């Protein structure tokens, strides 16, 4: 190894000196707004999501700020209730795939062998399966199950986190400070804690952001297609599906969840892109 100063593990990408551009502030604000709506919404909603408060497709007015939906339910209340399942499902899937990705990726990246090779190949095959197809098949086997939706999201995004961690681990394995730590007699856990994970944090965070976007994309689509826990639960995806036919009467009922999903996708996407840029993408 050419490197001689290997006693301490340098952080490969510090990300220091990042300026907080207006775009970053704006997108972070957008992300926060969508998350707050989804998580705090159910407590501040004026009506229950299933309560009928008027005629179908009433235009927005003083009492119902976003009008009423296809069954005469308050759209604002349903918007405030309908994000939680999407955000919670996709955050769960993202955490699960990050943890499994770290374990499998490190294991596959920091060693060789036929079995490890086979596991990497299996992960590659999984990546070739269209996400929505897997979700629909699982939904057919386990109808009306939110767990099946989370499992489908996790399975289809797992290949990416395994690949990112594995690529980062392989890169790290060639670095002198890992060898130095091994020569010093550091234990495996110590090595992971102080030499491997700190250097993995950046690429993994950027990748987790992209997986979170994919997760929201998929869980919202599941709601739209009527997978997972079904009607009458509020769900942004299902709200679009329910209220699209009434778009000629009033657009607010389908536009409100649509706008929230667009704000989320754009904010999270741009932020993840920034993150990947400043940490150096391995994907």
């Amino acid at each position: 190894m050419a490197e001689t100063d290997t006693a301490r593990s340098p952080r490969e990408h510090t990300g220091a000196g990042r300026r907080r551009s207006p775009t970053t502030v704006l997108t972070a604000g957008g992300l926060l707004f969508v998350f707050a709506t989804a998580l705090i919404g159910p407590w501040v909603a004026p009506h229950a999501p299933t309560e009928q408060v008027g005629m179908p497709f009433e235009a927005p007015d003083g009492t119902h700020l976003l009008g009423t939906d296809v069954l005469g339910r308050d759209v604002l209340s349903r918007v405030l209730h309908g994000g939680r399942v999407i955000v919670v499902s996709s955050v769960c899937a993202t955490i699960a795939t990050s943890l499994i990705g770290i374990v499998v990726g490190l294991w596959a990246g920091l060693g060789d062998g036929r079995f490890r090779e086979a596991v990497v190949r299996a992960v590659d095959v999984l990546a070739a399966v269209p996400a929505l197809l897997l979700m629909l098949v699982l939904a057919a086997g386990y109808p009306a199950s939110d767990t099946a939706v989370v499992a489908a999201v996790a399975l289809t995004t797992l290949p990416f986190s395994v690949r990112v961690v594995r690529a980062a681990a392989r890169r790290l394995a060639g670095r002198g400070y890992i060898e130095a730590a091994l020569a010093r007699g550091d234990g495996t856990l110590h090595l992971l804690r102080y030499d491997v994970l700190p250097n993995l944090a950046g690429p993994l965070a950027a990748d987790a952001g992209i997986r979170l976007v994919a997760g929201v994309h998929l869980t919202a689509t599941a709601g739209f297609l009527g997978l997972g826990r079904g009607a009458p639960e509020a769900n942004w995806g299902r709200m679009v599906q329910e209220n699209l036919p009434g778009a000629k009467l009033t657009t607010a009922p389908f536009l409100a969840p649509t706008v929230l999903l667009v704000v989320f996708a754009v904010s999270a996407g741009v932020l993840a892109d920034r993150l990947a840029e400043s940490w150096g993408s391995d994907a």
Partner: protein
Amino acid sequence: MTMLRYVIRRLVLAAVVLVLLSVAVFAATEVLPGDAGDVVAGVDASPEERARVRAELGLDRPAVMRYLDWASGAVRGDLGTGFVGRRAVADVVADRLPNSLLLAALALVVAVPIAVALGLAAGMRAGRPLDRWISGVTQAMVGIPEFVTAGLLLAVFAVWWPVLPQVSLVPLGASPLHAPEILVLPVLTLSVVGLAAATRLIRASAADISATPYVESARLNGVYGLRLAVRHVLPGAWGPAVQALALTTAGLVGGTVVVENVFGYPGIGRELQLAVAGRDIPMVQGIALSLCAVTLVTLLIGDVIARLIDPRGAA
């Protein structure tokens, strides 16, 4: 390795993967074998009635035997009979798949030229403002669900400015091409989705090629712009780009399911969603297996073309 051997090797590999996927599809949908019988027999059927229906459908036999029956049938082109309406699954696939392929093909025709242009423009100037814009916008677009894009397009072109039909219904037995206007919004939605994904992949490959010494030296020799793109970057970027496009095409499988449901378009994705909603297990299995096969064939074609363009690629 000669081209023929490469193709044969890849075909065998794809067949192995398809067998694995068929096991996965079967296992995921048949783990609760009671349900299928219940669907056919009805909710308030007596236990004897249920047992009779289960025996009739062969659901009382071991799962391995049922899988082997199903898989051997699939090899002969017989995917069984759906529970709902007793339609032959293979007929439904043969009837609806072409409609979906038409959507996907039209979307590619629209999206690919734009994606190549944008991907090259961004990748050849990686890190510059134009690249950051294109990367940022496409990254944001990738995250927008297909049904959201479809809903917005529908609101604009069918509700606020009603120039296009809100639904894309096709009369029984007719081709969607008889009324081309119904194809516009579905194709536009799919194009937007495919465009973002394809642009990102082509950008990555163009950026790699642009950083190579031969492109650098061409630049130093005063070659730039379109000439640099066509003569120096594209020849190297084509191979990975074709593979990227195959990946995008495979990704359109999910897109078509959603788009067909938004517009009521009679494609294979709409049938799949209806089958899932109606718990029509043989239909779900047959359609899922067909779509897996379509995906694998698409990826295979992409790899073969990439290898024809650039035989050095080891992939």
